[in-house]
């Protein structure tokens, strides 16, 4: 999908396109900072069962006990005492578009959600502030027994199912930020697809941070039962604020035997957001898990979608794009852990660095003893647009089995003058030509995106490329 670059030239400027925000009109807002009282109040406010309240408080202990990570990116700018951990914008969830409060609708109008919904959505769970306020599930999904709710409703309405899986893929003490999310999580999606059910249209959710200094801690749990298929898509935009903002999500996915799950994210946080996300899936016998992960924007991203290949014949793929501009560090990649025999994985990473931005590929490939016949291929390609920018590769590999087939390729390239001249000789401006080369570079990933996201991705690239060359 490299067809749209020239269409958007002239209609977009250099300012951040989604850098608007609507008046804050909140129903409930916790105080700044993180204490036991705040965590208990969140649980209280949500009327949660005791076990979840205990889970949150225990997680807070883990969060406080763990030191800040010293690897990856620079997290020293995060001030945990200056963050709102919970804000609930409206009392109840709206069932349809008409029921939504006008200012929320206005925000979404600007994001183009109604149009997107008309065209593509099979069901919408959009997160405004900390909680999902709007949900619509198409009748055919309900008929098939598919559950697609926000996580809070999921806990209320399907407590036993949630309790069975919640925190089992990413334990609450997995890392400092998973512990934080476990303590203060709010919103996110809960999806269950029954055995043999295949959902052709992607399930989508839009996320948005809209309060200054507000952390967003959504929690997503997806269970794809035997032989089922689902594609879940989330896209994020955020308005610009002057103080630092934190996004720390946890996504857990269970892909049962013979099932397939694809999880697509395009994140375009404003340049002050710390984006620290833990994503992990387990794939059982002959199951397939695919992460498609696009990281634009944010100040510091640390995100490595992981797949544990637990059953024989399981397959995992991670497609990752990172775009780092001025003042940004994208530390992204993927992890594949081969536990069972004859499992396969492919990690493809494409990064672009410009105007002093830094992108790092950080990946883990692990093959456990007994995972005979495991095959894995890691490809990371970096494109650097100027001398001030930087790219690094940190591929960690641990192999405890001899009978394996492992490949790793890495390339670093620049946009060539001759390539630019060739495109310019056809009438494309230098910025358009560079954007076209970049779009082509990430095409192996954009072609995997749903159409509207591919278009958006190319628009964002065009936007990022404005004024960055020449």
């Amino acid at each position, binding site marked *: 999908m*490299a067809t749209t670059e020239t269409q958007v*030239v*002239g209609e977009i400027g250099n300012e951040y396109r989604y850098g608007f925000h609507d008046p804050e009109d909140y129903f409930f807002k916790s105080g700044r900072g993180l204490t036991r009282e705040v965590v208990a109040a969140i649980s209280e406010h949500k009327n949660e069962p005791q076990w979840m309240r205990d889970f949150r408080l225990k997680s807070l202990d883990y969060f406080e006990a763990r030191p800040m990570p010293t690897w990856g990116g620079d997290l020293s700018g995060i001030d945990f005492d200056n963050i709102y951990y919970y804000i609930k914008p409206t009392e109840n969830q709206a069932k349809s578009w008409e029921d939504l409060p006008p200012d929320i609708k206005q925000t979404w109008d600007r994001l183009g959600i109604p149009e997107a919904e008309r065209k593509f959505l099979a069901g919408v769970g959009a997160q405004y502030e900390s909680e999902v306020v709007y949900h619509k599930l198409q009748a055919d999904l309900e008929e098939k027994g598919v559950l697609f709710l926000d996580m809070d409703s999921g806990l209320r309405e399907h407590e036993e199912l949630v309790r069975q899986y919640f925190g089992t893929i990413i334990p609450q003490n997995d890392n400092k930020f998973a512990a934080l999310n476990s303590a203060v999580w709010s919103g996110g999606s809960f999806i269950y697809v029954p055995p043999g059910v295949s959902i052709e249209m992607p399930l989508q959710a839009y996320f948005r941070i809209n309060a200054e200094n507000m952390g967003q801690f959504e929690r997503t749990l997806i269970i794809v039962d035997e032989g089922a298929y689902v594609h879940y898509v989330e896209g994020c935009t955020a308005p610009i604020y002057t103080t630092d903002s934190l996004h720390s999500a946890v996504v857990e996915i269970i892909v049962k035997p013979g099932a397939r799950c694809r999880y697509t994210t395009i994140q375009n946080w404003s340049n002050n957001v710390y984006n620290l996300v833990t994503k992990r899936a387990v794939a059982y016998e002959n199951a397939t898990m695919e992460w498609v992960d696009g990281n634009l924007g944010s100040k510091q991203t640390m995100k490595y979608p992981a797949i544990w290949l637990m059953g024989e014949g399981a397959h995992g793929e991670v497609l990752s794009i990172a775009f780092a501009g001025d003042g940004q560090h994208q530390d992204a990649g993927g992890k594949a852990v081969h536990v069972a025999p004859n499992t396969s994985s492919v990690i493809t990473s494409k990064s672009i660095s410009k105007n002093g931005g830094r992108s790092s590929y950080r990946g883990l490939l692990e093959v456990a003893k007994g995972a005979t016949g495991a095959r894995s291929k890691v490809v990371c390609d970096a494109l650097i647009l100027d001398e001030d920018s930087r790219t690094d590769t940190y591929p960690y590999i641990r192999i405890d089995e001899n009978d394996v087939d492992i490949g790793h390729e890495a390339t670093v390239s620049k946009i060539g003058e001759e390539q630019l001249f*060739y495109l310019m000789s056809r009438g494309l401006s230098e910025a358009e030509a560079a954007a*076209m080369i970049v779009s*082509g570079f990430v095409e192996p990933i954009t072609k995997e995106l749903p159409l509207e996201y591919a278009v958006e991705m190319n628009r964002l690239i065009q936007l990022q490329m404005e004024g960055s060359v020449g």
Partner: protein
Amino acid sequence: MALLEIRNLHVSTEDGTEIVRGIDLSVDTNEIHAIMGPNGSGKSTLAYALMGHPAYQITEGDILLDGESVLELEADERARRGLFLAFQYPHAVPGVTVASFLRSAINAVRKARAGGEDDPIKIPEFRKQLDAAMKQLKVPREMAGRYLNDGFSGGEKKRVEILQMALLNPRLAILDETDSGLDIDALRIVAGGVRELVGPDMGALVITHYQRILNYIKPDFVHVFVDGRIVREGGPELAEQLEAEGYETFTPEPIGGEA
């Protein structure tokens, strides 16, 4: 006023070496001019300089398109004014399909011609034009979905260059060694394509080492280019003479001991 007027043009590389040493040439619509010269005579440098390649400096002289100098214009602006260069070695752009690239290029040119307003070609119209041009140039349909020049054979690249020319409707097309890498059948098709496009709205400058392509393109004028200069001009018969006698006959006396 000719469509393209080259006046006393001197071109140097970045290290100051003069490659084109003062040429004068006019090309009008409805005309095909051939520039014939041996390897290393500076033919491709001339082509790049006309198109505005940043690595070549114009040290003296001027290039006028419709009477206006284009020296200050970047390659994209020259293209939007109607200059086109069919490259000797077209560059690959992985991940960008031929169709998508062509549509972007057409829209860039259309925008310029609409005074800077977006005027994108409608998709069905684009499809129609693309299909017609591909059929005429015998470019297989599947090429439209392949990544531009990525893994193309020499012949495929050249045909896609001419396909681009056909769709971009330039006013003056420069063809740099388009015949190299083409077999006779392909050559005939490509030459037919050029012949067809040249008319009241377009002129062409065909740069070549061999007479072969000229048998099919049938130039109106032939300029023999040796060591950065035009050393002889004439009609199509000059090409035949060259083919028979070789370039040695036309090599000028060395000036001041230069190699």
